[in-house]
């Protein structure tokens, strides 16, 4: 096992870092909006031009032919720079389209950024559980139609198509579908016998979400790393009682615990991105990653605000934004509870967790 990036990966990392820093005002500035926001088309085009939207797509489909490892490297830089884009969501959707059957004509425009395709997998009033949707799909001679209500992770009004799941009562299974021109209102979209293309079964959902979860993990790592760096810097410079805060051991020890969290998350994300490259359907590893980054994200985010004191609570300062984003990441594609439950259901199936398998 080797966790070192090769030269190409390092080049990707520094290119994305440079671009992300250019796109986001790094100085503390009150102009940076707080909370969910509509898609920033300019930033989307910029990351498309760099090839980030095609990273996990094969070259013959117009993509970069890279792996989830590269997705996580790119996402980490977006997270560190606070470039809040639906990157993980779009990667999950793109992978389902690329590996499924029927949406191939969209791939090129997804990769070049001209088509935005996002997921709409949650349902209003229901816990996250895309494998057991209430929405239903019906097959006729003309193809499939879907009926039901869905909720995206993002504002869907700019989406040219969405990827969703619906149960197919006639066949007794749940499948993944593509719906073009969804009539979205904010994050909600409702289908009434909407024409849909069946992309594949739940294995496809797992493969897509696994890449999405890797991207989320990368973004969380970036956000945690940045929050830790600002905290360390702040402890060195902020003075109270005539000394820098770093003179209070109770604070420095907590910064050390934050570092421990970030590094454990880093190993987990790096390992999982390699494992999922090799085994695209490895949902147990994806769940472990989600659980670890969910918990470390909370730990690091909450401590970053606390150790900054009042300034950490403000919209003008970066740590609050990182914590806000970490909170969103935790609630995207299933939270720690959901993934822990999934892992709990599977503990009988193995003796030990074998990371070298």
């Amino acid at each position: 096992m080797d966790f070192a990036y090769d030269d190409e990966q390092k080049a990707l990392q520094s290119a994305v870092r440079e671009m992300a820093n250019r796109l986001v005002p790094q100085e503390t500035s009150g102009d940076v909006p707080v909370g969910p926001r509509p898609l920033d088309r300019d930033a989307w085009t910029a990351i498309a031009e760099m090839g980030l939207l095609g990273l996990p797509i094969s070259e013959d489909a117009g993509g970069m032919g890279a792996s989830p490892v590269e997705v996580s490297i790119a996402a980490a830089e977006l997270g560190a720079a606070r470039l809040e884009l639906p990157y993980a969501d779009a990667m999950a959707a793109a992978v389902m389209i690329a590996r499924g059957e029927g949406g191939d004509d969209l791939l090129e425009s997804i990769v070049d950024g001209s088509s935005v395709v996002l997921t709409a997998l949650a349902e209003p009033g229901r816990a996250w559980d895309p494998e057991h949707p209430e929405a239903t799909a019906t097959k006729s001679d003309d193809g499939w139609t879907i009926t039901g209500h869905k909720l995206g992770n993002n504002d869907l009004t700019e989406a040219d198509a969405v990827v969703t799941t619906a149960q197919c009562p006639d066949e007794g299974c749940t499948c993944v579908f593509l719906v073009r021109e969804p009539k979205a209102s904010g994050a909600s979209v409702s289908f009434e016998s909407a024409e849909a293309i069946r992309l594949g079964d739940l294995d496809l959902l797992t493969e897509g979400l696994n890449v999405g979860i890797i991207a989320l993990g990368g973004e969380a790592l970036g956000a945690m790393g940045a929050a830790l760096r600002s905290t360390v810097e702040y402890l060195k410079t902020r003075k109270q009682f005539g000394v820098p805060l770093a003179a209070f051991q109770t604070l420095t020890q907590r910064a050390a615990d934050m570092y421990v969290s970030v590094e454990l998350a880093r190993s987990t994300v790096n390992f999982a991105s390699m494992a999922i490259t090799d085994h695209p359907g490895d949902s147990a590893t994806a769940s472990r990653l989600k659980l670890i980054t969910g918990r470390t994200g909370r730990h690091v985010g909450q401590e970053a605000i606390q150790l900054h004191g009042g300034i950490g609570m403000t919209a003008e300062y970066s740590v609050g934004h990182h914590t806000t984003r970490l909170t969103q990441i935790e609630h995207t594609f299933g939270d720690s509870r959901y993934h822990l439950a999934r892992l709990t259901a599977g503990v009988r199936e193995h003796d030990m967790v074998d990371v070298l398998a």
Partner: protein
Amino acid sequence: MQRQLTDEDRAFQQEMRQFFTETVPEELRSGLSKDGEVDPDVMRRAQRLLNEHGLAVPHWPTEFGGKDWTELQRHIWRTEMQAADVPPPLAFNANMIGPVIASFGSQEQKERFLPPTANLDIWWCQGFSEPDAGSDLASLRTTAVREGDEYIVNGQKTWTTLGQFADWIFCLVRTDPNAPKKQMGISMLLIEMNSPGVTLRPIKLIDGGHEVNEVFFENVRVPADQLVGEENKGWDYAKFLLGNERVGVAPVGSIKRKLADAKAYAAQTKTATGTMLDDPLLAARIAELEAEVMALEVTVMRVAGNSKEGRPDPVSSILKLRGSELQQEVLELITDIAGPASLHWTPTDDIEEWAARSTPTYLNFRKASIYGGSNEVQRSVISGGILGLKG
């Protein structure tokens, strides 16, 4: 030891419950806020209604509207009020400056300020913190120089909560820059917010809301009769005030209300096999929190019973520490119950108000472990003041 309420206290509890749930109208109880921000009109109407019934400032001296209640009765009053979601009397008025004026103010000040303070005819804000004086409050730099029968005030305050609605600010100012200890040169001044030279700048927090401000003072002239007590004794009054701030700061009633709400939200969030409340992992978290809140609640009562003549027991630091932590944990639980809906901050037909508010509220309440003496400061009070561990 005795667990049960006496008949008298039970009747009192019943009376409070009835008042808060029946006399206080629903529109005042459905929360402090409109779109997550404080609605000053609701606050004023609620406090005036309480004051009209003698329930706004029960811990003040009786001649200014106080009730000779026991600590237990005060606890019952507070908890029933929170459990019914009635906006509590503005803390800056009822718990902070009111008791200070009642204890240290001149007779004129008492007569001038206490009735409008109890009735929220004057809205007070707290001008203690400065950019370089947070936990280290005594290093504050705002100056007040006596000139005839006025003080000339210059400097800056920050984190002034709800300053945008305030009529007056109670400030700590430096009156003797040469005092042997920095705590000894500080005074407390009462300043009208519309005095020439006072300006306010809003600070936006991470939930997108505006509740705190910076306040700037530029050659502000303050009549000398607005000095509280004696010059250079402000630190003593501030310590008294902060001690009061800490007592009753464990919002047990609202934590219990929120936890009950969380259960209701979980029970209405469907899963493939039932509701979220049927999920053993979620139910276990609720059960743990219920046990922890119980431990806090009975500690509040134990501490309340111990405190003598309004002097806070140092054990009250436990209440601030654990109260803020549990409050934060319950709000975090609610974001998890909202799950995918918590990603969207605007309610719609598909996203209920509670779910849309869950993340901003959770983020906003990260403040609870920072203000009013941060949790680190509370741990120092416990380790130094109770355990005798210095450093």
